[in-house]
């Protein structure tokens, strides 16, 4: 059981680290959004699943899973709203022409 919980926490931390590095390193707003929305959601879900497994089956672990479901729904929604706002505000995506120019 402890091994499974540790594995879930470590995997969740790995995906959160991938999201964080993506947001730091990727060159353009939309690619950063891509890193944040998917990797961060998966990392959060795995970490919270580990915590709920550690807690056992009661009201508190149900609340932890409620937080997980809430983040699973709202994180992509918030990312979608940000992408739409950026498109409407005229933030230009990075294209091949931008890369070829020095």
């Amino acid at each position: 059981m402890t091994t499974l919980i540790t594995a879930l926490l470590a995997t969740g931390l790995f995906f959160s680290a991938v999201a964080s590095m993506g947001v730091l390193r990727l060159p353009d707003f939309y690619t950063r959004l891509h890193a944040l929305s998917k990797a961060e959601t998966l990392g959060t879900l795995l970490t919270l699943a580990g915590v709920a497994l550690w807690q056992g089956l009661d009201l508190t672990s149900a609340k932890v899973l409620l937080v997980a479901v809430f983040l699973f729904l709202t994180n992509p929604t918030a990312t979608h709203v940000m992408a739409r706002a950026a498109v409407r505000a005229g933030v230009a995506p990075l294209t091949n022409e931008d890369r070829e120019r020095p």
Partner: protein
Amino acid sequence: MTSVFVAVAACAVVLALAYLYRVAAGPTVFDRILGLSGFGTSTTIVLILIGCVYGRLDMFVDIGLGYALLNFVGVLAAARYFERTERR
């Protein structure tokens, strides 16, 4: 088990602080909102792990839920606001 939670929480704090670089240095205002969204999600994780460490998960999970809710509403409001004002 507590040491595992402490280690994971410490790593999550470092990841949350990494988002603050994007908040401070983001070229557009949407990069700053994006950084704040990631920061809030990481902070929710840290709050729940702190609850595991202190053995008061029943209290900290409510705080985490409230933090996630406020983070979502704030990001939504900021994005909708700058969608109108930042138009070029």
